[in-house]
């Protein structure tokens, strides 16, 4: 793999981690309004997938959507402004953490409804099919959304209409407080396979595995061979939401997984990384990202809030 690609992969994963860690800290200080769901620990999945996509490919995301948004190219400053509820935010302060989107980047929205974004991604894929181009659409969703009717209906629809779509299910072990091993009846890949999707089990802690696997999958999907399903094992270091005491998880589980298979650690320790990049280069990226997040937080804190004039705009295009 090329140096530039690996540097970019590490930079993006590090960016997501720092972004989420900062919000975690500042939310605890009471500085961040609203409901916050962080994706720290899940970075390799977002980055390994989105590095294969262009602005003309689409993704939809979930309530835990910061990582996907950053990986798809949404602006860091505008995203932080949005989370801080500022007029300069990506959605003018009207969406917040759960509704991050930049349609010009092919990011059609995080979503506050579990499973809600999956049919939307099918619609983006349908557009690509109707127009007859080779673009694709990826629906990111969690283990909880696998049990939503919207997701299962969409798996069937995607197969029946042969949509250029990839179902990227990130199984972080818990749907809110309930273990996914309990909540999902039957076998995940057999379920997806039952809808006729090509199925793939992927270790989402390992950037290299995600990147290589998705590279092959997306090539198949682009060539019109029908929708695919990925079961990506990940883990979220923080709770379901910020403020969640996580007592449903065994004590020490998060620390153990962080020590054993943190995606940034695995990337640094991977033999391919060692052959191509030096530790010093990666340390420098760490330092740059810290600076960038300092700037983003400072910008968000100083940015203006939306005003009364913004309350009733953007309801309709014309009315």
């Amino acid at each position, binding site marked *: 793999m090329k140096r530039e690609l690996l540097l970019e992969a590490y930079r993006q994963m590090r960016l997501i981690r720092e972004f989420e860690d900062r919000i975690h800290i500042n939310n605890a200080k009471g500085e961040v309004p609203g409901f916050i769901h962080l994706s720290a620990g899940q970075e390799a999945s977002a980055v390994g997938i989105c590095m294969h996509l262009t602005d003309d490919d689409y993704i939809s995301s979930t309530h835990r959507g910061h990582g996907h948004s950053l990986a798809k190219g949404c602006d860091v400053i505008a995203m932080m402004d949005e989370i801080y509820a500022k007029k300069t935010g990506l959605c003018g302060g009207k969406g917040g953490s759960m509704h991050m989107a930049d*349609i010009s980047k092919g990011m059609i929205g995080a979503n*506050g409804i579990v499973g809600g974004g999956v049919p939307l991604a099918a619609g983006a894929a349908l557009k690509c099919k109707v127009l007859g181009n080779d673009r694709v659409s990826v629906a990111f969703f969690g283990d909880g959304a696998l049990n939503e009717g919207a997701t299962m209906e969409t798996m069937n629809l995607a197969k029946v209409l042969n949509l250029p779509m990839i179902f990227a299910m990130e199984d972080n072990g818990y749907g809110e407080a309930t273990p996914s091993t309990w909540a999902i009846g039957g076998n995940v890949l057999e379920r997806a396979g039952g809808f006729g999707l090509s199925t793939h089990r992927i270790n989402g802690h390992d950037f290299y595995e995600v990147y290589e696997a998705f590279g092959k999958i997306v090539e198949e999907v682009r060539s019109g061979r029908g929708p695919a399903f990925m079961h990506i094992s990940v883990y979220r270091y923080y709770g379901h939401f910020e403020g969640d005491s996580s007592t449903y998880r065994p004590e020490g589980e998060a620390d153990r997984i962080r020590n054993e298979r943190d995606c940034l650690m695995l990337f640094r320790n991977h033999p391919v990384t060692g052959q191509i990049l030096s530790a010093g280069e990666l340390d420098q990226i760490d330092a740059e990202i810290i600076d960038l997040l300092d700037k983003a937080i400072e910008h968000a804190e100083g940015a203006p809030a939306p005003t009364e004039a913004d309350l009733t705009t953007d309801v309709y295009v014309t009315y």
Partner: protein
Amino acid sequence: MSEKSLREAINEALRLEMQRDAKVFLIGEDIAGGTGGEGEEDAWGGVMGVTKGLFGEFGGHRVIDTPISETAYIGAAVGAAVTGMRPVAELMFCDFAGVCFDQIMNQAAKLRYMLGGQAKVPLVIRMQCGGGFNAAAQHSQTLHALFTHIPGLKVVMPSNAYEAKGLLIESIRDDDPVMFMEHKYMYDDKWEVPDESYTIPLGEANYSRDGEDVTVCALGRMVNLCNQAADELKGEGIDCTVIDLRCTSPLDEISICESIEETGRLVVVDEGYPRCGFATDVAALAAEKALRSLKAPVKLVTPPHTTIPFAPTLEELYIPSIDRIMTAIQEVYHSK
């Protein structure tokens, strides 16, 4: 210009817009019918035959049959709209909004606002509404009030074939999500409809008849019942204005209030449920903005607050009738 049924007028509007704009496509259950089977292709053209022939003209990539899977295909239509297409989805019956309401209420309606104005959702959801066929509780509702309650949705209910063609073309060209409600009792009703394309703006009411004694507001099929009631009452010397509101969102408040100022008397006729319903909405508007013009209490003619019954004897009692409309108008007219 020739006589066309509501079914033909809607079909023509769809055809003209699909010819005009390659981004317009149709999606829904059995809108061709027979896709993937060994029988006739384009077997149905929708359960009411409204889209018949379009599959043959535009092909399966623009007239897309789906599994019975409302959440998936309504959601896909929303996603396609957000990414630049202009889908027209057929939901078959407005009652079926119940199985895909998240995609209507939380996605289609809200995306523009949540995303700070980045998104446009140029989507039309066509659906049948209304009673009269003894189709019972889950296939006879008129749920415009439910949709009107949600900011971000536009809601259109044409009163005849002429209106339907112009309003549907306008709805397809509109950049916001439009819930387009076709009264199933009117599909065979014929009106003079021009062959060419034309539009009727959303949010501008039509003075279906002009009179100076009583203002009668209605939508959809009820407009025709109101006009028949007004014809009858003309003989008694009661001269009605009948306003076809065309849309519940946007609502032409100005036309309603101006007419109340002229007549001082208001009857609202609606086929939807009465509580928190469309008729009460218009009555509240009159109370808020035209109260000093009113010479009599406002009368509402709606079904009772019950589920729609199956038995023909009961359904006949349920749906507002010409007699009930006439009685309401007489009461308002004679009220001192």
